[in-house]
């Protein structure tokens, strides 16, 4: 199940936010050993302070098993302000119709039999949510910065996107800047992915978005 949490309403979902930051720590800090800041067992950075839109994936027991965050490129974001070396010639993104996805996470248990199914399903769910949010905000493109493992995962899903520049070694991690175009081609690929993992377009995504104003 997907839940969409505007950052400014984090106080309303303290457990999910706590779970999400801890999952991010276990993935980015403990397992991938990225140079990220850990405070009180949370992986958290300055972009979290900017009230991004969080998308979290939950299992049947409502535990967070995946997530990502979205920021508009008109304000501050990772590609422009942290990974600008991945942009050609000092270019920067600043469009109301382009958002950035970052901190894409899926929980891995280490048990290959469980992971094979859950990881692909959670990834598909998060990608479907990204597509739905893009539609709700009438976006034209999505940009993201990712590592090689993520890039390979996306490529396997048929969602490699377009590289903005040659991948670069940043902080010891081979780093890719990708751009995706919203529209029919992406819809079709995500629908195919959803079908393969046994998901149908999840109506709870959009109703969760509407509910955000009610709760």
């Amino acid at each position: 199940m997907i839940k969409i949490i505007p950052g400014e309403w984090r106080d309303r979902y303290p457990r999910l936010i706590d779970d999400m930051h801890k999952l991010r720590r276990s993935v980015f800090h403990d397992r991938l050993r990225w140079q990220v800041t850990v405070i009180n067992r949370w992986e958290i950075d300055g972009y979290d302070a900017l009230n991004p839109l969080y998308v979290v994936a939950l299992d049947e027991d409502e535990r967070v098993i995946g997530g990502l965050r979205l920021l508009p490129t008109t304000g501050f974001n990772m590609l422009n302000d942290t990974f600008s070396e991945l942009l050609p010639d000092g270019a920067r993104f600043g469009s109301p119709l382009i958002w950035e996805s970052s901190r894409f996470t899926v929980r891995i248990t280490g048990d290959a039999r469980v992971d094979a199914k859950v990881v692909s399903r959670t990834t598909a769910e998060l990608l479907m949510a990204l597509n739905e949010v893009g539609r709700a905000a009438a976006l034209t493109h999505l940009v993201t910065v990712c590592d090689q493992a993520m890039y390979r995962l996306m490529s396997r899903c048929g969602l490699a996107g377009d590289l903005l520049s040659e991948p670069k070694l940043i902080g010891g991690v081979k780093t890719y800047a990708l751009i995706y175009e919203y529209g029919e081609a992406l819809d079709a690929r995500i629908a195919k992915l959803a079908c393969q993992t046994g998901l149908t377009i999840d109506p709870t995504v959009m109703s969760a978005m509407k509910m955000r104003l009610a709760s």
Partner: protein
Amino acid sequence: MHRDDFFDLIDQLSRANRIDVASDTLGRLLSDWGLHNSAYLGFNMPTPTAERPLLSATYSAEWQKHYAQKAYIDIDPIVRSGFGGILPVDWSEIDRSDPIVRKFFGEAQELDVGSQGLSLPMRGRHGEFALFTVTWKGLEPEWLKIKEALLRDLMLFAWNFHAVALRSCGVGLDEKKIRLPPREASCLRWKALGKTDEDIARILSISPHTVRFHLEAARSRLNTSNTTHTVAKALALGLINLSYEPTSLLQLRPD
């Protein structure tokens, strides 16, 4: 509206430097698209003098007066839903179980704000936040179709309107490329903190003449008329910060 006409409006906005000029363009958009009202609200705009939010709205004088008298800015459910967020807010999604919220929308409807509304939150690189709203008179099923057809263009229009608002505050979006050399930034920062040229000379261990040289260089870089104006613009552009001295500058100081 024809696509070319829409991009004509965007062109007009990109040449405008004043809210009233942008509002004329907005008026054309509203009439061409059959929309009823619009409002633009800019918070934390990058001007050292304007702590108050920047507001421009086409609502009836009665509603604007009523809104001010009741201090509705403090409880406005639309602002509360949009503030700090990034997703477009359709007014029909706002929870109305609170009687205060119901009363607000009831009075708005009575004073001809419009029955449907859409508010688009925006964020820029000066720490500012803005909300661009359009309203429409009619029933929800038709509104949903109109909204879907217009949303992307509205997002573009809203962002360009916001750019005009920034320029009206003296901030050009193209000025984000300006970089102040550390010494100039340091002198301007101490100026902003009320120090005289002599004070700054002592703090930075340079001559007052050199301080004035740096201030003049910054003035010319920012294309401003005097030091006060330069300080204001540097603050607005986020080139200097009152709360801390950039660590890169500390190394320059002799012991």
